[in-house]
């Protein structure tokens, strides 16, 4: 029995951040991952509007955004049965242990600290994806 055979391939990621430079870096960085489609949104509100069309396997959320911030976006996803099971990763400069614990309590499957290494981001995402219990999703 090999768990890898049960694991679906990570095919689509949505990254949400109000900072255009970081969006561009994430798009370029994850663009190095073969077979991965990367969509970006500049706000939590826009992400919630686009989710039905994008249907990502994984959502990466900045925490501090004007308007609908990351935690609020996650809460609204969890309240919608269509998106409730999409794993969410916070990408944040607020990565102190207490804050990370709070984000995990909110339902984030992982937290990636800024600054992250653009050369390693794809691998980081893959490790997180492979660590998820896809049988429960």
């Amino acid at each position, binding site marked *: 029995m090999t768990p890898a055979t049960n694991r679906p391939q990570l095919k689509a990621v949505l990254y949400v951040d109000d900072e255009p*430079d*970081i969006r561009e870096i994430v798009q*370029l960085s994850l663009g*190095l991952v073969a077979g991965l489609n990367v969509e970006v949104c500049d706000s939590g509100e826009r992400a919630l509007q686009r989710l039905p069309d994008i249907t990502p396997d994984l959502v990466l959320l900045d925490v501090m955004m004007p308007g609908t911030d990351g935690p609020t976006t996650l809460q609204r996803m969890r309240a919608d049965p269509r998106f409730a099971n999409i794993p969410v990763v916070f990408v944040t400069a607020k990565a102190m242990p207490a804050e990370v614990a709070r984000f995990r309590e909110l339902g984030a499957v992982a937290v990636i600290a*800024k*600054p992250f290494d*653009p*050369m390693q981001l794809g691998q980081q995402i893959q490790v997180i994806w492979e660590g998820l219990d896809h049988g429960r999703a």
Partner: protein
Amino acid sequence: MDERDELQQKIADIAGRYIQRTAGELAGLRELIAKVSGGNTTAVKDIEQLAHKIYGSGSMFGFDAVSEQARELELAARGTPDMQMIENLQRHADALESQVQAALRARGVR
């Protein structure tokens, strides 16, 4: 040039855009501090968000001194505005501007 070298080059280009844009945002930051001085208490949230954005992106692009000053400014913008907070905001905005100017000079931008 392989795709990783290409990514490094693109990141360097984006970093250049970032620091120039940040320099442009400092005027808006000053306006927000003036609003707080004038009694607009909600402007501190805007200052906190702008400083947080500069802090997070600055660290991504290796502008550590800019990022650190932006972090100080972000922390100074938390709480209820009073004279002490306004002084701190102005002091940290000055320091941030100095670091942004230094970063621009280091890149040969005047």
